[in-house]
């Protein structure tokens, strides 16, 4: 029992450290990536290659006053950043980083992540509503309808995948994808998965971008239209915690995509040993793609965004579900 407690505490500290470190350094990755896509250098003054920039940003944010503007709801305003960060950190609990490297190997891991992923929208809504600002409320209204629209295709593709794997245990899903790149759910060349999984992957990736409020679906911030969207009234570390939550969500999204479609910690070639390194490589490749997409596409208009979900993603993911069901029945 004592051993179990120590193990969980170690994982807790590790997960929080991992989330915070990722949040800090993803900002650096984002700025460096943005710069190189625009053929600039990006942060370079603070430390070698600007590597100490996140530290400088953090110190700057922490030294700023936690401002409580007039007319805000003090409780909601303060609780919102935490509401965004905590579910994201909670989701790390079931992510299998390696074969034996998961804080809790829950049978309902996938369900748990989806359950917590939908809470962060509530955090945004509470923060925006509490800050009594028109831009924030508009942003929140957009984010809510966007998340409702995009959760459906995301869950539909996940259900199609779960039908093929017949388990919601993430470690089990990864184990099934062992034995080389052609066993991954992305391009599975066996009869146990439907031939539509590449399309399912594209849908899942798109909805993941929308769920984590990333460009081109960044309705929560929309800095050119809504000042800073839901974060308009936040200063100092309130804003910092919001941002940590956002980046932790991106890490979760990338990790989930890795687990479900890219074989988690399995190595791409059968003769190479599987390890946590493969997981990290795949996850950061996805995160790089997310940054890459942000600096390629402009933000979509709001109704185009909803049309994309209701007219394209939902019908196709439904078709995917039916085809997968039929395929599994026949073979």
């Amino acid at each position, binding site marked *: 029992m004592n051993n179990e407690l120590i193990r969980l505490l170690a994982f807790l500290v590790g997960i929080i450290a991992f989330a915070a470190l990722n949040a800090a350094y993803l900002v650096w990755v984002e700025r460096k990536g943005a710069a190189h896509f625009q*053929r*600039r250098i990006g942060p370079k003054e603070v430390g070698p290659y600007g590597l100490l920039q996140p530290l400088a940003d953090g110190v700057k944010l922490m030294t700023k006053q936690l401002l409580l503007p007039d007319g805000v709801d003090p409780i909601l305003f303060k609780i919102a950043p935490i509401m965004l960060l905590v579910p994201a950190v909670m989701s790390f609990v079931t992510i299998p980083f390696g074969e034996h490297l998961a804080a809790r190997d829950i049978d309902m891991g996938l369900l748990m992540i989806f359950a917590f992923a939908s809470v962060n929208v509530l955090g945004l809504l509470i923060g925006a509503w509490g800050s009594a600002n028109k831009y924030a409320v508009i942003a929140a209204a957009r984010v809510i309808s966007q998340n409702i629209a995009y959760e459906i295709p995301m869950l539909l593709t996940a259900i199609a995948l779960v039908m093929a794997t017949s388990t919601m245990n993430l470690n089990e899903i990864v184990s099934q994808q062992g034995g080389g790149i052609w066993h991954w759910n992305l391009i599975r060349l066996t009869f146990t998965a439907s031939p539509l999984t590449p399309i399912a992957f594209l849908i899942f990736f798109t909805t993941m971008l929308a769920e984590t409020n990333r460009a081109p679906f960044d309705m929560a911030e929309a800095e050119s239209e809504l000042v800073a969207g839901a974060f308009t009234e936040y200063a100092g570390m309130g804003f910092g915690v919001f941002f940590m939550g956002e980046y932790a969500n991106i890490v979760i999204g990338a990790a989930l995509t890795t687990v479900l479609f890219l074989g988690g910690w399995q190595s791409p070639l059968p003769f190479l040993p599987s390890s946590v390194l493969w997981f990290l490589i795949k996850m950061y490749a996805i995160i790089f793609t997310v940054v890459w997409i942000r600096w*390629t596409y402009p933000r979509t208009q709001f109704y185009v965004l909803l049309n994309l979900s209701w007219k394209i993603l939902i019908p196709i993911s439904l078709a995917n579900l039916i085809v997968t069901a039929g395929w599994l029945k026949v073979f």
Partner: protein
Amino acid sequence: MAYFNELFSGTKSLFVGLGITIKEFFKPVVTVQYPHETIPMSARFRGHIELVPDPETGGTKCIVCGMCQKACPSGCITVDGEKREGVKGKVLTLYRLDFTKCSLCGMCVESCKPEAITFSKDYNLAGPSREAYVFDLVKRLEEQR
């Protein structure tokens, strides 16, 4: 069918866009890291005017005709000279440019017969007061020597 055509062409165009940006990602950067490195100004860049040194004597080519002073629409040039024993013509003693009023029109440079003034390439101009921008160009020429 049109629905699927649009879907395919739309998805394809997204990947084309990604291809373009990743190509740019691996190209060398084009920005100049300004305070650490500077690029030479182009030949026709117009900074404030300065006196051209005479390649033989190292002094000025100015003959104190006062044409630049007359040509200046803003009246920001003051030229003065004096007669000296044994020297033909006048010798320049004062060339003051009030850069706060100068609009860089270049009338002075155009009107100068002996081509004694030219545009400098200075652009790093910053000063604590208006008076810092009243340049003594004779002194500037001597400092450059």
